């Protein structure tokens, strides 16, 4: 049993980056990604500099390179997409190793790959230094619609409860000799899914009763008011500001 909602991406630590209020980190990553996306794709050196910036953040957060690289694997689908682009794109073509590739496609692939990797890397860094719970507080603080934040909190709280219910239903099915093997069993699975939905819905009603009984009137009370000092904001925003300088240079040069 771990403490807190340790998700797979989170890496426990006490670095200065871990200690930043969550909404400053969210804002920083968001701005960083916007800046990266608006950089001209021809300015290749700019992307190298962004990578260096992220490496500096990872160093400050004491997130090892191996950890970060392993989690970057999420973006493999993007890579596959990017690899295809030079083959299928239209327009002027160049010959590489005897293959005729589209120049436009090559640039497009590079664009997706470089920007995608940087965006994913920044998000992975955010996730590995911020607990899920904190992220939600940060979103709440950044004035995201409260309903969305509430839905996300309930997903965290009840995800395990529902998975557990699903597991119990599976055990009950298998104890009675049911083995899902092929299309003819989909009917049973569909009925289980229906039962799970009804159970979850009824639980929702009971939870709502419990909330109303404790004074809920439509909005979640603020329990932990996360607030950031000016110093914390400027520390967090160093990343997107440095990136912005690089981006502007990219446009000018």
């Amino acid at each position, binding site marked *: 049993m771990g*403490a*807190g909602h340790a998700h797979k991406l989170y890496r426990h630590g006490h670095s200065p980056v871990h200690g930043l209020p969550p909404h400053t980190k969210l804002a920083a990553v968001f701005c960083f990604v916007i800046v990266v996306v608006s950089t001209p794709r021809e300015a290749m050196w700019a992307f190298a500099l962004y990578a260096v910036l992220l490496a500096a953040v990872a160093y400050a957060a004491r997130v090892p390179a191996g950890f970060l690289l392993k989690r970057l694997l999420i973006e493999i689908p993007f890579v596959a997409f990017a690899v295809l682009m030079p083959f299928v794109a239209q327009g002027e073509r160049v010959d590489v190793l005897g293959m005729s590739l589209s120049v436009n496609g090559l640039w497009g692939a590079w664009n997706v790959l470089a920007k995608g990797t940087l965006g994913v890397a920044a998000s992975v860094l955010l996730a590995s230094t911020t607990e899920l719970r904190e992220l939600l507080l940060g979103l709440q603080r950044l004035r995201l619609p409260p309903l969305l934040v509430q839905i996300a909190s309930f997903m965290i*709280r009840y995800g395990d409860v529902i998975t557990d219910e699903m597991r119990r239903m599976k055990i009950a099915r298998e104890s009675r000799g049911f083995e899902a093997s092929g299309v003819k069993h989909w009917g049973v699975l569909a009925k289980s899914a229906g039962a799970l939905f009804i159970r979850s819905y009824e639980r929702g009603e009971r939870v709502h009763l419990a909330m*109303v009984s404790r004074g809920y009137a439509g909005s979640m*009370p603020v329990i932990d008011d996360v607030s950031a000092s000016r110093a914390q904001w400027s520390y967090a925003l160093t990343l997107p500001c440095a990136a912005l300088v690089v981006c502007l240079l990219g446009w000018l040069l």
Partner: protein
Amino acid sequence: MTVSPTPLSPASLEVGGLAYAYPDGHQALFGVDLTIGRGERVALLGPNGAGKTTLVLHLNGILTGGAGTVTVAGLPVGKRHMAEIRRKVGIVFQDPDDQLFMPTVREDVAFGPAAAGVKGPELEARVHKALAQVGMADFADRPPHHLSFGQRRRVAVATVLVMEPEILVLDEPSSNLDPASRRELADILRSLDVTVLMVTHDLPYALELCPRSVILSEGVIAADGTTGDLLADEDLMRAHRLELPFGFDPKSVKV
């Protein structure tokens, strides 16, 4: 022992002529009368489907619209004082997974007072006090689903105690608890200085904790008296489908 309320302080709970039919037409309560004095611990016994939960949901105004009145510490349950009533009546529901809906124990306990506008160090202090009362202060930052069932039940009690309620209402508090957790919960409930209404099937538990019991059967209060006397009345118990565990003799128990 029936503590008669002192004339100056109104009874914690007064239910008069309460009748209720569900929207589908099924009538669950047929005129319930019940008075509980301040500081009393009363068990509400009754077979499945007797209307116990329906009665409980009337106590804090979740269900309304039937005939009769409910008064909590002199305050009538109704639209006008709803927030105040919900603060005064603390209901612990049967399944702690329904009761504990926040990501951490601390936030869950803080939910009620925070909704009432308490914040900062005062909120922190109240949360800590409530968790300490149920012996769970060390678990404040744990997510509820990582706790044992007994621990979750205790936290559920804390989420209500933190509101400093006039009356604590527990729906089947001993269900699903192993003997040790059952005893721990009993110790906690006994140590509290608050009026308690405990809905239960667990007759030994009622005898252990509540000097007085009432039997709700088919939507009316069928009996009201000392728990020992009620449990010893075999005809009464049989008439209301209440059965003592095998080998348990209420007359032999010294409370």
